[in-house]
């Protein structure tokens, strides 16, 4: 059997084989775009994992170091995992990196988006425990400026929110389509309120708490970024309490924003993106990627992506999901 396709413009891409009807222009699939962004970040994460710094003892020491301060039942498996990785570092790290690249490929490739998203949740939870020590949440070292509550758990959260189902097709934002707007808002509020709480912990509101986190990022950075970090460190020197209070207030406003009407919600989402960008640039130095040896882009980028998942949709943008069509597979020919 032979099928013939004649394609002359973009709309042809949206048509089914054999369907002679004219193409219908669809509203942009916002959720698919966000899934692709998540896929790209997984690809970035996986590629970073192949770096030489992950193939040396320092990497396993970093893994083992996340056990410090955690309860025994959390710390023991972390130490066991670090020892296991140390004895098979080359092979296991290559497997880790390849898994992460495959997660990115799987999410970006439409036919495998569901299994890849599900696998990414499982992988993220595993890495959150064994690789990040639950992001320092239980050890008292967590700070919104150093990646709390763990960048990798935000991957899992976004994967759940972008799951290609339409339980609530009329949700005013993409994040609510799969789990419903009420659950999505609750997840958002829990995350940002927890960040506000971490901002106010004793370690972070200490006079040099914020300054210490920021100035620790300077080493190995290109000149322009090192200058920015130095400037930020100078501004926050001795101002730990003030910075923590201002940051916590902003984070609380962001947490409450999704419960506000759309115009106000947009303002708080912009604030969320700005805060995320500030954290990513000044406190996380792009995840230390430019200094070499970063394992992931850290939390700032993911927080910004998460904020976009809650951006209020125009009515037309909700259309693809309202008919119950699965946007992730609607273009797949049986």
């Amino acid at each position: 059997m032979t099928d013939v396709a004649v394609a002359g413009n973009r709309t042809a891409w949206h048509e089914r084989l054999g369907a002679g009807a004219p193409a219908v222009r669809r509203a942009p699939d916002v959720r698919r775009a966000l899934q692709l962004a998540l896929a790209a970040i997984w690809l970035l994460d996986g590629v970073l994992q192949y770096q030489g710094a992950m193939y040396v003892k320092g990497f396993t020491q970093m893994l083992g170091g996340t056990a410090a301060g955690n309860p025994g039942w959390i710390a023991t498996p972390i130490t066991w995992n670090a020892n296991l990785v140390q004895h098979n570092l080359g092979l296991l790290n290559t497997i880790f990196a390849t898994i992460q690249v495959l997660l990115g490929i799987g999410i970006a490739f439409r036919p495998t988006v569901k299994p890849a998203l599900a696998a990414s949740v499982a992988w993220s939870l595993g890495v959150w425990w064994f690789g990040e020590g639950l992001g320092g949440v239980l050890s008292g070292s967590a700070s919104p400026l150093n990646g709390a509550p763990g960048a990798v758990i935000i991957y899992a959260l976004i994967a759940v929110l972008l799951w290609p189902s339409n339980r609530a097709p009329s949700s005013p934002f993409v994040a609510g389509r799969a789990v419903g707007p009420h659950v999505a808002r609750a997840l958002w509020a829990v995350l940002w309120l927890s960040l506000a709480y971490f901002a106010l912990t004793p370690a972070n509101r200490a006079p040099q708490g914020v300054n210490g986190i920021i100035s620790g990022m300077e080493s190995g950075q290109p000149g322009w970024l090192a200058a920015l970090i130095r400037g930020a460190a100078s501004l926050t020197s001795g101002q730990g309490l003030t910075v923590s209070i201002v940051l916590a207030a902003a984070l609380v406003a962001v947490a409450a924003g999704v419960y506000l009407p759309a115009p106000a919600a947009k303002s708080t989402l912009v604030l969320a993106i700005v805060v995320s960008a500030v954290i990513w640039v000044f406190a996380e130095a792009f995840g230390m990627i430019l200094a070499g040896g970063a394992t992931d882009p850290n939390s700032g980028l993911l927080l910004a992506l998460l904020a976009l998942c809650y951006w209020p949709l125009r009515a037309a943008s909700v259309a693809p999901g309202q008919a119950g069509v699965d946007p992730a597979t609607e273009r797949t020919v049986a």
Partner: protein
Amino acid sequence: MPPAWVTDIFAALMLVVAAASAARLAVARPWQPGAVIPDTDIAHLLMGIAMAGMLASSLTTLSYGAWEVIFALLTVWFAYRVVRDARASGARALAGGHCAPHLVHSAAMLYMFLAVKTAGSGSGMAGMGGSAMQTLAYPTLAFIFALILIGYTAWDLDQLPGFRHSLAPAIALPDRLAVAVSVAGTSGGEAAAAGLSESGAGTTTGRTPPGYSAGTGQESAGGATASGRSGAAAVLLSPGTTVGCRIAMGVTMALMLFLMI
């Protein structure tokens, strides 16, 4: 640097890309009169060879200077094509067109050769695996290139399912339409002829993604030489193969950039 066997795997992957591109060129017979010049396959072939040489020292072929000239020419060529596409279809050429990713790939290759030469010993890469330490000047540029490459890779992967049903070359037509023939179990020769006739009737039933067969139709090698292809040749000449090669190169190139930051 990662162990040599890791970079060797990626070098082997790049040789596969180069081999596939060479096979596409051979099957397409671009030297025949009237054939479409498959610039993307030429680019993939050269990039595959160059990247394999950068990843594994034993696969080094040309000198740095030669690669710089080659990738400078490719960058200029694809920049010209992007400008031409942009004039025809606006900013869409950057998002959905196929020349923009190749422009980024070519420019990234040029940057890698220039930046390593500037920052390093000037004697060329000794391969990325093992103990050799390669660094790039202007690491911010490497980061930006890597992000764009990864973005295009995700975009290509998203478009890839549509190519499974478009297993034959696009044919450039005078009216800037292109014909893509889906083959399922039989040769593509008759299909190509049928496709041309349907084109004349104005039927629009295609699944060819945006930017790949529209316009110049050069994403696929072969052009008007589609008739009489076997199933394997049709797969080889399909846009999906080209995009698959580009995905592999995008990931590997991003990896190389991060390895040298």
